[in-house]
């Protein structure tokens, strides 16, 4: 009946009322727990809170101490090295494994299960297993030495310079299986005709992968990167199980600093300041990316 030709949908607050009511608890949870918790943490990071939160503002003192603490700087450096290596290696290894499994080989299910299996283990178990494997007395080094190569040295967990790579090995062992499965699903989603067309045109297989298949798998890559990246920022249990930050403080990570400050040192303010910095660094990466990703989509309609 109406003669208006608005292409915007009319505002109808009671449409789909059931669905709206059903989503209220989740919206409340998000607002109170996530957004509220975040604001609370940032607010209290400017206070002198000890064991219990206390509204006694000290300005930026917590942040000054944070950036003057060697342990925090080492933790940031470790996270940086660990993050870059983890991202690159798990993507490359995961994709290569998936491409190999995609060659219509026998026992594919068996291989896939074997490679995915470590992902079923918790970080704590993974960490302990690799702590034993990398232990110089009875791990890899011990075994090789017993075979007769007595000068063989491989003790990453006891060498402050390379300890973070010892943790990286365990993280890769645990995480690449999942990346491989995602990639494999992505590869299976590529139309068989594309491969046929490429073969007809005489394009070598590696070129087909790099220039045709990988660009087509963009959504899968984004999913994999988001999963890995969130794992990197919160890496904590693996370090605790493998080295508990040692030798010395050589394998500290930011999440562990936050935990130790809040609970072991009974200095909530310092822990909040550190976690705010972690949030900030994630935001610096996420916000431009989200802007590019979603902003562009909207423009394209």
């Amino acid at each position, binding site marked *: 009946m109406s003669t208006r030709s608005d292409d915007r949908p009319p505002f109808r607050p009671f449409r789909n009322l059931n669905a709206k009511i059903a989503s209220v608890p989740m919206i409340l949870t998000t607002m109170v727990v996530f957004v509220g918790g975040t604001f609370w943490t940032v607010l209290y990071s400017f206070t002198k809170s000890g*064991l*219990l939160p206390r509204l006694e503002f000290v300005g930026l003192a917590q942040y000054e101490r944070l950036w003057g603490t*060697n342990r925090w700087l080492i933790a940031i450096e470790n996270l940086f090295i660990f993050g870059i290596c983890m991202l690159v290696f798990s993507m490359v290894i995961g994709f290569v494994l998936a491409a190999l499994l995609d060659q219509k080989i026998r026992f594919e299910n068996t291989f896939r299960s074997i490679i995915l299996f470590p992902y079923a283990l918790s970080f704590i178990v993974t960490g302990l297993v690799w702590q034993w494997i990398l232990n110089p007395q009875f791990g890899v080094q011990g075994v090789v030495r017993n075979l007769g190569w007595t000068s063989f040295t491989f003790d990453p967990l006891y060498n402050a310079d390379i300890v973070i790579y010892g943790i990286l090995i365990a993280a890769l062992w645990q995480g690449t299986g999942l990346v491989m499965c995602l990639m494999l699903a992505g590869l299976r989603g590529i139309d068989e005709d594309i491969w046929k067309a490429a073969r007809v045109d005489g394009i070598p297989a590696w070129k087909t992968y790099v220039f045709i298949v990988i660009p087509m798998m963009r959504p899968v890559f984004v999913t994999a990167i988001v999963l890995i990246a969130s794992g990197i920022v919160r890496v904590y249990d693996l370090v605790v199980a493998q080295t*508990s930050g*040692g030798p*010395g*403080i050589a394998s500290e990570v930011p999440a562990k600093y936050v935990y130790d400050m809040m609970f*072991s*040192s009974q200095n909530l303010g310092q822990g909040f300041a550190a976690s705010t910095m972690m949030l900030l660094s994630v935001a610096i990466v996420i916000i431009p990316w989200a802007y590019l990703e979603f902003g562009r989509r909207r423009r394209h309609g």
Partner: protein
Amino acid sequence: MRHAMLAATLAASVAIPATLANATDLEVTHWWTSGGEAAAVAELAKAFDATGHKWIDGAIAGGGNTARPVMISRITGGDPMGATQFNHGRQTEELIEAGLMRDLTDIAEAEGWKDIVRPSSLLDSCTVDGRIYCAPINIHSWEWLWLSNKAFEDAGVEVPTNWDEFVAAAPKLEEAGKIPLAMGGQPWQSGGAFRVMLSSLAGPDVYKKVYGDKDTDAAAGPEIARVFEAADNARKMSAGSNVQDWNQATNLVITGQAGGQIMGDWAQGEFQVAGQTAGEDYTCLPGLGVNAVMSTGGDAFYFPVLQDEEQKKAQGELAALLLKPETQLAFNLKKGSVPVRGDVDLEAANDCMKKGLDILAEGRTIPSGEQLMSQDSLNQINDLVVEFFNTPSMTAEDAHKRFVDIVASAD
């Protein structure tokens, strides 16, 4: 059949409350998990069970720095245990201020703790605004150097009598394939060992100035510079002891793979469990054989505020029990620590414990680090020292400079 089941269930539901009427379960959390410690805590449980109540053991493995967060979050999170171990001192300050800990003053007065606890500083550490909030259970001193007689025999040198002789003997030990100084990887261990070097080599007065008054001039002084040189030696001597936990490091000494270890008197419990005799199999040097002073920190039990009347009563009974002479004796003999009351007959004490008792009797005591400094500042020092011990490129001067910075901002 069905009736019989029903009857049995009814009978059971009547029977269980009947047995529980005067026996209350009390959960007690602590971090005593090594062999000697577990044996000692079993004595407490036995004594408490004998009163008709039930000791529910809530051991948390991994040392105080792991256990305390769990305990604190349970107390602040509204799920308090019946009683819990802490080191008396400043760890519980804020919990008491927030009113989460039970005031034990009436029990302390009824039992006359003021007259029996020795040294009195132990009870002072439990006291906030004139009220008593904890029951001290033992005196722990950090200031011990434990030496393996076997290791020195194998290396063909005399067992040292002080720190300098120990450092001098280190090359011989290394030749014999031994690690001169065993040191676990956890930060509190190297931090504690450093504090021992400071109070022993620089003397108790400097120690009190630095840790107690946070005097930066004293911290920057030449005495502390010498302590960092000693720590530099200790760093070289401890290279190669790839262990994490303190009792693993103690085990290196017990088995003669390492020359010695700087560790508190709780290490003695491990020697006892291994069946070794003080003076014959191992030697102890209080204050590194230089300044025989003992810090009088230790463990104490705190009782969170509970609502249940029965449990409150059981808490009170446990608090009183902890300071009874029999409990004190049984517990401390197993633990290798010193009782908090002076009138306990320590006939059965071994050589090392007697040395400790003599030092106490002469009053050569200093407050423990936990009594003087907040856990936050102590952890900062621990972090610095453990970094120093594991970073060969870090110079003693560098570490000293950063130590002064920490002392300047400490509280």
